[in-house]
């Protein structure tokens, strides 16, 4: 049993088309970082890992090598290159060894989807599934929201091009993929926004 095990994302190749299209994003590095978000050393370590500044409450910041999402008052989600994630966790751990902080590579415990499409299509898909005000002026680029998607926990944000990124637990990847695909089906656009 000496062959290397090839990493695969939760629903490799999953895609659907409709008024908004859904695609599983493939291998994505995701790191949960918990600690004192006001700490300077923590902010510096996050910047070194992603190039992104510390996000404000419920915001996501973009850097040249990653994104940083505010998940709670003591938790961040770092979205980075999948192959780089283990090294980034090591760097964070050593930079924060003197504090009450924890960095964990959760890449393979999560799934990420892209919901893309014309106009406000992608936001209408999410509005069908989450109890969140998704009006264009209420939720915009730079915001991140942890909520539920129908019956399971999930989080999402908007990219600059208007497409959404949706993160959920790997164990419910098929459920979330099917949810998004069905909510985006042709002919079912509410055209509310």
């Amino acid at each position: 049993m000496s062959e290397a095990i090839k990493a695969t994302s939760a629903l490799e190749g999953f895609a659907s088309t409709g008024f908004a299209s859904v695609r599983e994003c493939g291998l994505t590095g995701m790191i949960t970082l918990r600690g004192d978000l006001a700490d300077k050393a923590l902010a510096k370590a996050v910047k070194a890992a992603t190039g992104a500044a510390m996000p404000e409450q419920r915001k996501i910041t973009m850097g040249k090598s990653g994104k940083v999402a505010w998940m709670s008052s003591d938790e961040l989600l770092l979205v980075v290159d999948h192959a780089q994630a283990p090294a980034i966790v090591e760097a964070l751990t050593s930079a924060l060894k003197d504090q009450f902080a924890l960095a964990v590579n959760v890449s393979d415990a999560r799934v990420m989807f892209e919901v893309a499409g014309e106009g406000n299509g992608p936001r209408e898909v999410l509005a069908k599934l989450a109890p969140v005000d998704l009006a264009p002026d209420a939720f915009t680029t730079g915001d991140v929201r942890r909520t539920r998607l129908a019956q399971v926990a999930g989080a999402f944000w908007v990219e600059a091009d208007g497409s959404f990124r949706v993160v959920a637990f790997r164990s419910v990847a098929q459920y979330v993929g099917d949810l998004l695909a069905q909510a985006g089906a042709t002919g079912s656009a509410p055209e509310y926004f």
Partner: protein
Amino acid sequence: MLILDCPCCGVRGEETEFHGGGEAHLKRFGPDSSDAEFEGYLFTRQNPKGVNFERWRHANGCGKWFHAARCTMTLEVFATYSAQTYEPPADVIAAIKAKRPEWEMPA
């Protein structure tokens, strides 16, 4: 529908994003307490028709616990506040009294 403002992450969410955790500000009676005290801790609740103090968790959100003061009859929420308190803060009491002048804090 019950709408709650999570004081931990600032989200205004509807009930399904949260999970109720029962009556707030219970005093725990543990080892060496009398049977009556322990029974009271486990089972005795105010269960009022009106102003009630409750624990809630932002389960499908930031994951934090917090407290809420609300009316069990109208679902009106007077305030939500930190879980790290042993009793409702003065501003929460004031917010309740402003809406329910006849209400008194139960003993």
